[in-house]
């Protein structure tokens, strides 16, 4: 299909064609038409997959000025910039003047007539985008696998590079990122990830940009999480930029611009122009480095279309669930059975504790679905206490990592708490928002390992970090530090805290793990957990299940409302001390999640009773453990 190739390989040609055609008719609204054109093409079946993705194709394999897509998170928003929307060039030989379109481009053609009356200044916005933080390897692989884009190495690329093995690359990375690693000693799970990747990492040259970080390390690409890889991108937005919010996850379709002129200009400016024009040097070197990084490291992407990513699960159709009723109905019918399988699986992993397994499922599908003034509704932070050893929690994290699209393991060791930057902070010198671990996309699973915490002193940063975590859990918001003031950014992060006793952080629900395994057999059992890996089809089922359950709609009928109210009044009558409004809050959330986990979109009597029942079980278990640890209020 040659036409397909055309709009992907040479989108600027399409834009320019439209621009030229519009010259006769000033009111043609060609800009809207151009955007419409690309949107229409992207709606076609398979069209999105045939566009190469910056996420899984190394930059040097992509053709400059072609259409690419990028799955990303808006990490920072820079100031709007004015550019030449339309300008006129003069051919030095013939003196012929040509009107040109400057949209979707960084660099103008030669011979610009700066005094032309036809120059039109337009405004565009720049976002600094990074790959979705904490995106798990299976997601990346799955996306890369489904891509149909045939990437032809550009002709300028000479494949003479010695093909290094993956291990070597890793070593390189380690060396380069050493300072960072020392600061934030990365806990265990990183290694299994890589191990996992190792199995099928001997892939084609045209895949996975594993060596990219090696060269980028001298430039801080400002990833929220330490040890992240992948390209970051300056996305230029031409319309409706007010609709985008910080930390939104998007799939951006845009025109790739890696013109070496961009960096060449920057260099030259450093050398000569700063002497010529003192005003140019007003920007600090840091600021320039951040705002005009070399295009080979931070490519520019001129946005044509952006699709909000609602779930980032490659196994689900990208359209919203309502639009895909066939998929939805088939999944819904299977949900109960998948849930049972998942429950067995989790029970096995959680040392035979079925109740904890149940709660873990509920936690994984929780979602802040609404906010009532300051109160976030639907959050379900789980505190899994009574976890045996540190190695166990790491295993547990690896399993969760296999199931959710993005997650992050934060070992709450004293060192980490005192030294890590959790809350993003505005860096006024470089004029950017220096990212922090808590700048996460929606639905990211944050795994807090409190077992790593030992006795000792928290310093100011540590106290601030713990407060930030507490705020995140209670209000689902992070107060970004703007030095002179703070700004509140709402978030939607699933927080799972594993601890020995009750956690020092607040949580919506605490459950004490009751091991069915005798301490003598523990070692053996633990080592067997990892062996017991699921087949990939099974895993895929679980993955789909967890993502779908979270996206379902939910309501409570009037009758159920009534009966829930009655129940509450009765419970209060029996024991007014132990049942408070907070308990009702929690039970309503549990009932909601329980229904959704079964694929039911409205609360039934059974689910409510069951929610009450498991909450009772949990509470009675807590009673038993009350005297065991001293962390009770």
């Amino acid at each position, binding site marked *: 299909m040659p036409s397909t190739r055309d709009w992907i390989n040479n989108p600027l040609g399409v834009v320019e064609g439209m621009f030229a055609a519009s010259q006769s008719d000033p009111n043609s609204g060609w800009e809207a038409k151009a955007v419409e054109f690309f949107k229409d093409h992207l709606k076609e079946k398979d069209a999105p997959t045939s566009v190469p993705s910056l996420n899984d194709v190394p930059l040097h394999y992509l053709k400059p000025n072609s259409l690419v897509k990028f799955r990303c998170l808006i990490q920072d928003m820079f100031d709007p910039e004015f550019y030449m929307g339309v300008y006129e060039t003069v051919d030095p030989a013939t003196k012929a003047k040509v009107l040109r379109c400057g949209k979707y481009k960084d660099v103008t053609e030669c*011979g610009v007539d700066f005094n032309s009356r036809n120059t039109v200044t337009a405004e565009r916005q720049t976002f600094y985008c990074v790959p979705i933080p904490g995106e798990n390897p299976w997601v990346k692989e799955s996306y890369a696998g489904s891509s149909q884009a045939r990437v032809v190495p550009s002709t300028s690329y000479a494949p003479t590079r010695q093909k290094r093995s993956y291990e070597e690359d890793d070593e390189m990375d380690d060396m380069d990122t050493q300072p960072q690693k020392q600061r934030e000693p990365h806990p265990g799970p990183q290694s299994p990830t890589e191990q996992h990747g190792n199995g099928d990492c001997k892939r084609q040259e045209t895949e996975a940009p594993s060596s990219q970080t090696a060269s980028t390390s001298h430039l801080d690409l400002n990833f929220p999480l330490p040890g992240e890889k992948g390209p970051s991108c300056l996305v230029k937005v031409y319309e409706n930029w007010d609709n985008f919010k910080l930390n939104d996850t998007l799939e951006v379709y845009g025109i790739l611009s890696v013109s070496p002129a961009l960096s060449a200009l920057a260099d030259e400016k450093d050398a000569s122009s700063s002497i010529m024009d*003192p005003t140019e040097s007003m920007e600090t070197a840091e600021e320039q480095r951040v705002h005009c990084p070399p295009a080979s490291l931070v490519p520019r992407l001129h946005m044509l279309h952006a699709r909000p990513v609602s779930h980032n699960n490659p196994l689900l159709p990208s359209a919203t669930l309502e639009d895909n009723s066939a998929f939805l109905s088939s999944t819904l019918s299977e949900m109960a059975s998948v849930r049972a399988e998942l429950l067995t699986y989790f029970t096995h992993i959680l040392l035979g504790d079925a109740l904890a397994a149940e709660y873990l499922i509920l936690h994984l599908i929780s979602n802040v679905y609404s906010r009532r003034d300051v109160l976030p509704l639907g959050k379900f932070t789980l505190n899994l206490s009574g976890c045996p050893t540190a190695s166990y929690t790491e295993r547990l994290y690896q399993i969760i990592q296999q199931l959710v699209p993005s997650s992050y393991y934060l070992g709450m060791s004293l060192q980490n708490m005192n030294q890590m930057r959790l809350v993003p902070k505005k860096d006024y010198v470089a004029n950017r928002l220096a990212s922090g671990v808590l700048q996460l996309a929606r639905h990211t699973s944050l795994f807090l390992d409190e077992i790593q915490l030992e006795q000792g002193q928290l310093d100011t940063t540590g106290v601030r970090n713990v407060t930030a975590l507490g705020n995140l859990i209670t209000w689902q918001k992070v107060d970004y530090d703007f*030095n002179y003031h703070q700004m509140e950014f709402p978030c939607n992060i699933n927080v799972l805290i594993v601890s020995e006793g009750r956690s020092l952080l607040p949580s919506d629900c605490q459950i004490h793990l009751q091991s069915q395994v005798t301490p003598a057999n523990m070692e053996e059992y633990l080592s067997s957990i990892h062996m017991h890996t699921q087949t990939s089809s099974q895993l895929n089922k679980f993955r789909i299940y967890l993502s779908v359950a979270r996206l379902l709609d939910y309501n409570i009928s009037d009758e159920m409302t009534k009966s829930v*109210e009655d129940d509450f009044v009765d419970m209060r009558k029996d024991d007014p001390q132990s049942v408070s409004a907070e308990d009702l809050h929690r039970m309503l959330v549990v009932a909601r999640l329980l229904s959704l986990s079964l694929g039911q979109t409205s609360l039934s009597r059974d689910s409510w009773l069951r929610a009450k029942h498991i909450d009772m079980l949990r509470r009675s278990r807590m009673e038993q453990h009350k005297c065991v640890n001293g962390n009770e209020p």
Partner: protein
Amino acid sequence: MSSPTSTPGGCKRGRNTNPATPSSEGPTSPPSQRRRGQDSSTGDLMPMPTSPATDILSPAAPQDTSLFSSPRPSVQPNEVDMSSPLMYGTPSSRVEGTPRSGVRGTPARQRPDLGSVRKAPQVDLHSDTDGAVASESNAGQRLVIWGTDVNVATCKEKFQRFLQRFIDPTSNEDENAGLDLNEPLYMQKLEEISVVGDPVLSVNCLHVQSFDAELYRQLVCYPQEVIPTFDMAVNELFFERFPDSILEFQIQVRPYNALKTRNMRSLNPEDIDQLITISGMVIRTSQLIPEMQEAFFQCQVCAYSTRVEVDRGRIAEPAVCRHCNTTHSLALVHNRSVFSDKQMVKIQESPEDMPAGQTPHTTIVYAHNDLVDKVQPGDRINITVNQSPISLIHRRPNGFSNVPAGIYRAVPMRVSPIQSNVKSVYKTHIDAIHFRKTDEKRLHGVDDDADQKLFTEDRVQTLKELAAKPDVYERLSSALAPSIYEHEDIKKGILLQLFGGSRKDFTQTGRGNFRAEVNILLCGDPGTSKSQLLQYVFNLVPRGQYTSGKGSSAVGLTAYVMKDPETRQLVLQTGALVLSDNGICCIDEFDKMSDSTRSVLHEVMEQQTLSIAKAGIICQLNARTAVLAAANPIESQWNPKKTTIENIQLPHTLLSRFDLIFLMLDPQDEAYDRRLAHHLVSLYYQSEEQMEEEFLDMAVLRDYIAYARTYINPRLSEEASQALIEAYVDMRKIGSGRGMVSAYPRQLESLIRLAEAHAKVRFSEKVETIDVEEAKRLHREALKQSATDPRTGFVDIAILTTGMSATARKRKEEAAQALKKLIQAKGKTPAMKYHQLLDDLRGQSETAITKELFDEALRALADEDYLTVTGKTVRLLA
């Protein structure tokens, strides 16, 4: 290109009189369609041989003084008009030598803030053909500055008329203090200038607008042309009036308060080269930069010297010496060149201007000459850091350019194809003409947030409609934190707190300020959504601060002095209480606060100031903040058998400073449970829209409060005063029968504040009886909850003011007397066993004697020097 086209700017525009060459005087105004082609790029491409003025002075000099072969438009006679502002500030106007007064005698100072566009030619509006020379006679009226519709003479005349005639009797600005409001305002200011000798005239644009709308429009659209014209006009006027005054340089006009106030986010290409006012917060200032204004060149061969003015940021180095015709012989002499001060200031959007979920924008501002160092990053010297917008009047000039010079030099050579590409992005900045700190006034005295928030007509109308509704009070209180169930009275209390009382100033009579803010304490069982209420209030008010008693120190609440790492200066960093000046400070876990921290609050909660004496900085800061605190009972569960004081263990001196103390208890009755359950369940299943309908929008509530706080200032009516007096007397009476004091003047003050706040809720300028009634009711409700003596069931204000109920005191005295009698009855025994004495007293008394009571009785007797207690023995004295 020679065909003149009208621009879409909507303004009349001068016709193109220039030949079709890409000269710097080119008629087009590329980016905004308004600029007059002063890109720095062109300056490099075709440098103008100095300025037209020099040409006049040396008419014999050849047209092309440089080797640059760019054709330049022939200088037409009518373009050279000595009275035009285009001449302003050029070397020709500078008469060196004998300093004498008068316009010509006072050196004009360069205005780098206006850019260097004064050389734009005037054009005749009606000259259709190129080079048509309008005769001198008719040129007067029809001449406009090229690219604009500004006629210099008319404009000058208008402005002079404005200065001479403008009277603003309603002015209440600081700057006009001490001026006679019925005399022409600006003439008085000129007089001031002649006395003080500070040649800067600030002109309020609103005044210009009310005087002459057309002039104002021109000022906003063409500031680069109009402001020099204004300068000229004011100087002529000034030296006419005060011919003998000597100024450092000519008077400069600084307009401010242009109506076109924008926030940074809405700046767009159309604003380029316009006069606008934006507000923001200073985040960084640069070092002082000397910027060359005029370069001094000297010929190495013949020592002939020449001056070249800066033109769009560039100096065109003369390539040929005019005197000896040697090429490339001129050298720059630095210390004979003229420099001006320049500073880069970075400003950031103020947080309240920003849409949620986005990061603030920043803009670069250049401050020139005396505006340098007028502002500080973060405004640290000002106590309110994040609420201190600085409005600047400025234009956005040429907005150029990131185009590296090297490229232009390379153009004729066409070296590499890459370099002939140009990055198509403009670099923008703002030239400051006037800084105005809006928060300056807050340091001294009262301000009324007048410039805080502007409401649209529609909005005011909606708010007024809302206020006219009879149930507005109930509506608003139910709109407050709808997710929190019931607690109607508490919400009403908080609502009144949000509105606050009227501010009264008795400083003249020596009584100082009266507190207008209402302080509220919530105490109650844990988990009764106290924190949630606090969070809501914190989110609602623009100047709210939220702290937790557990984590905050006295320093964090008040202010501390720290050394700035960059400047090594001592700076005052303000804490939560000062930051919430004019707002609400929410303090959670009030009971967990350390005593030293709490002691700070004493001053704040009554005097509303904070005194600081640290590291050589002694000052008193305003902290007119309302305190909303939440405290948990000491035993984690509220003990209904104890008094409030006993339950929360706070000093009564502090408690008496709270106007309202509410208990948030779990009521534990079925009907309540049912309503609560219904409320919670509906929270979980109703959609957002359904909830919206039921309650007022948070934004409306916020505006309502802001409007009432700004514009409504109720005063007590006669009946209301009477009602208040009665209420107070009644309160005093209640207790007097039982020998208890049930009200103190503090309670009366609380009542007045609450009544005023209630009047504000109704948008009423008068406090009426209904306001007093509601204040009484609310006050009573709060007292009923917090000051009821658990032993007698009566309300006893003494619990809050002295920490002990009157009955308890009475019982203590009785016990002491009984004990004394008992000891006296025992006869002369110098020492007694403690336990035996207690048992004896218990056996004798008909009321139960607790150990605590016994101890207190013993202490009372010890105070009388009747006995001493040492360990377990009691010894009699005397």
